[in-house]
């Protein structure tokens, strides 16, 4: 073998890759948003997070004051009573800052500082005379705008923690504004998050995540890099929420001597440590393990990425595990079990419509009827080839057939691809199309799940 052959082989294969990099922006943005949601990290009782900038604000005293004063959160904004509290994804939030525009303006821009804990914003217009359409756009993330067709404080938007301290630039606009119209934004801080479940002051395992209950949580001390416990199994149907923070090393989960997982420890903690428990497709326990058996569960920090028994030392590392019942109801869509209830973007959603293609069909089209409530669209593609198929989710908010590609995924190994979700805003009746390019096979199945907003 000559080095020239090696170079030409690499060049030849690299040259075969055709790419549309513009289409990569949207999925990367969604991954960032998902990561920020997962990084809902924080410390209870952290210092107040100031809202630091506002435009056309009639509450100048609300700016740059820390800690927050009661006067910063007036009980009415834009002539509307502001909800004092709100719940989102299992946590309580408290209204702390208010902004409103001057009379007669059709837009309001605010900067909301987000740090180690998530925040919520709600919005409203004083205009009740006509059917009001208010759009809230996060100009920092570039996400699609939130739209409300009700003029009061009827919806909240979730600003996930993580990524260091940042300022989200939010712009509220109204389609038409009369001479006296005011727009308002209310900002909420998380309130006593440890009340939501079992925690150590930094992370918490919620007592309930959707329909599942916390069975047991074990949180190690800082520097305890080998965490073991024994448990008697009352069920094999469990969801596992492992966590490691305070280190950039590797950690592993072993159950009854069987390696289950190895992944990176995160330097930053995630407040909501039980948000995404995994079932590992029921493959956690070794063959022969039965209900009633007692097994040893071990989490340990490793010096490298191999599955090794050797331990790494790190005085700041914290290992933790939460175990949840797993009774989630599912529907088979395209042959894949899709959970009915999900948490996404700080909201809870419940599936009400399931669509799937006939085997071998390369596209699936759905026309969604108008609704005053947001809806969540999830998708799945099964039986696709990982050597060239591309799955596209195309959404046309105005109902035409020429929609915008909002998701592009290469087909996954194993032939099953899942996409990140898409929120259909109130008042929209879009056409949603899921399609596979690159040629489908007789086993290709496509599925869409439409969910209603529960909270």
């Amino acid at each position, binding site marked *: *073998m000559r*080095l020239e*052959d*090696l*170079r030409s*082989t*690499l*060049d*030849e*294969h*690299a*040259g*075969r*890759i055709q*790419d549309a*990099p513009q289409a*990569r*922006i949207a*999925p*990367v943005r969604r*991954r*960032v948003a998902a*990561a920020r949601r997962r990084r809902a990290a924080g410390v209870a009782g952290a210092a107040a997070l100031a809202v630091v*900038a*506002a*435009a*056309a*604000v009639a509450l100048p005293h609300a700016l740059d004051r820390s800690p927050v004063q009661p006067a910063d959160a007036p009980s009415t904004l834009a002539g509307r009573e502001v909800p004092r509290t709100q719940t989102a994804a299992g946590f309580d939030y408290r209204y702390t800052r208010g902004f409103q*525009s*001057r009379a007669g303006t059709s*837009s309001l*821009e605010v*900067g909301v500082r987000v740090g180690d804990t998530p925040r919520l914003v709600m919005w409203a217009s004083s205009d009740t005379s006509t059917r009001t359409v208010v759009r809230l756009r996060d100009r*920092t993330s*570039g996400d699609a705008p939130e739209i409300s067709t009700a003029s009061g404080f009827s919806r909240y938007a979730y600003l996930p923690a993580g*990524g*260091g*301290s*940042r*300022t*989200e*630039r939010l712009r509220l606009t109204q389609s038409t504004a009369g001479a006296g119209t005011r727009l308002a934004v209310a900002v909420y801080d998380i309130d006593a998050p440890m009340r939501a479940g079992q925690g150590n002051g930094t992370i918490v395992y919620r007592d309930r995540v959707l329909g599942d209950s916390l069975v047991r949580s074990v949180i190690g001390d800082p520097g305890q890099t080998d965490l073991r416990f024994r448990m008697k199994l009352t069920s094999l149907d469990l969801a596992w929420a492992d966590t490691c923070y305070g280190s950039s090393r590797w950690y592993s989960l072993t159950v009854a001597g069987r390696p289950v*997982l*190895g*992944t990176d420890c995160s330097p930053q903690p995630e407040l909501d440590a039980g948000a995404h428990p*995994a079932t590992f*497709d029921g*493959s956690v326990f070794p063959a022969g393990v039965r209900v009633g058996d007692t097994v040893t569960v071990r989490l340990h920090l490793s010096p490298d*990425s191999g*599955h090794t028994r050797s331990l790494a030392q790190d005085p700041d590392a914290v290992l933790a595990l939460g175990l949840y019942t797993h009774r989630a109801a599912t529907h088979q869509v395209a042959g894949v079990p899709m959970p009915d209830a999900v948490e996404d973007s700080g909201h809870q959603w419940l599936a009400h419509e399931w669509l799937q293609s006939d085997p071998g069909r390369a596209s699936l089209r759905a026309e969604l009827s108008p609704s005053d409530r947001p809806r969540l669209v999830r998708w799945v593609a099964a039986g696709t*080839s*990982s*050597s*060239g198929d591309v799955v596209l989710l195309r959404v046309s908010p105005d109902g035409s057939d020429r929609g915008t590609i909002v998701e592009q995924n*290469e087909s*996954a*190994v*194993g032939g*099953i691809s*899942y996409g990140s979700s898409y929120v259909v805003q109130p008042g929209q009746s879009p056409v949603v199309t899921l399609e596979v390019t690159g040629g489908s096979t007789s086993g290709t199945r496509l599925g869409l799940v439409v969910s209603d907003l529960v909270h």
Partner: protein
Amino acid sequence: MEKAPASGAPTWVRPDFEEFVAARSSRLLRTAYLLTHDRGLAEDLVQTALSKAWFAWGRVDNDPEPYVRRILVNTYASWWRRRWNGEEPTDALPDTGSSGHDESSAARHDLWDAMARLPKRQRAVVVLRYFEDLSEAQAAEVLGCSVGTVKSQTSRALAKLRIDPALEPTDRPTAGPTDRPAAPATPEGTTR
């Protein structure tokens, strides 16, 4: 609408990130494909690296490509078994990409197959040295290791390729892809 004076607080507005994705990520995709030998995994790897880089974008120097490439290569090297709701773990080796070979020689085809059997770190070194044309020092910086490690990994990788059964001397019958014994599952292949 009146604008309030700027507060002076830092904001996270970074239009250059999307420009970077549009302009430079195709090159990263090709590197990822050479590492993973799978188009789908390569896309996943690039998106993973880019989304990780997003969080540090404000701290990245003028040319972010080396930084993103470092994330990409190290993410690839440390992939073991991904966790994500709904993702199916697999015990099968990933597909080896398009089978649409045209005129390329059997030797190149076999060399590509042989590369798939290299351990991840060695494959990464080969791609960085012979596709990216990085020096040993530059490759060491990307991989976060010493120059000596790059040298030894390169040497081992080339030695493995030279003795790979797929690259036997041409005066002996060359086993075709279909009659060659199945490649043993590498640790990284079975545990991802």
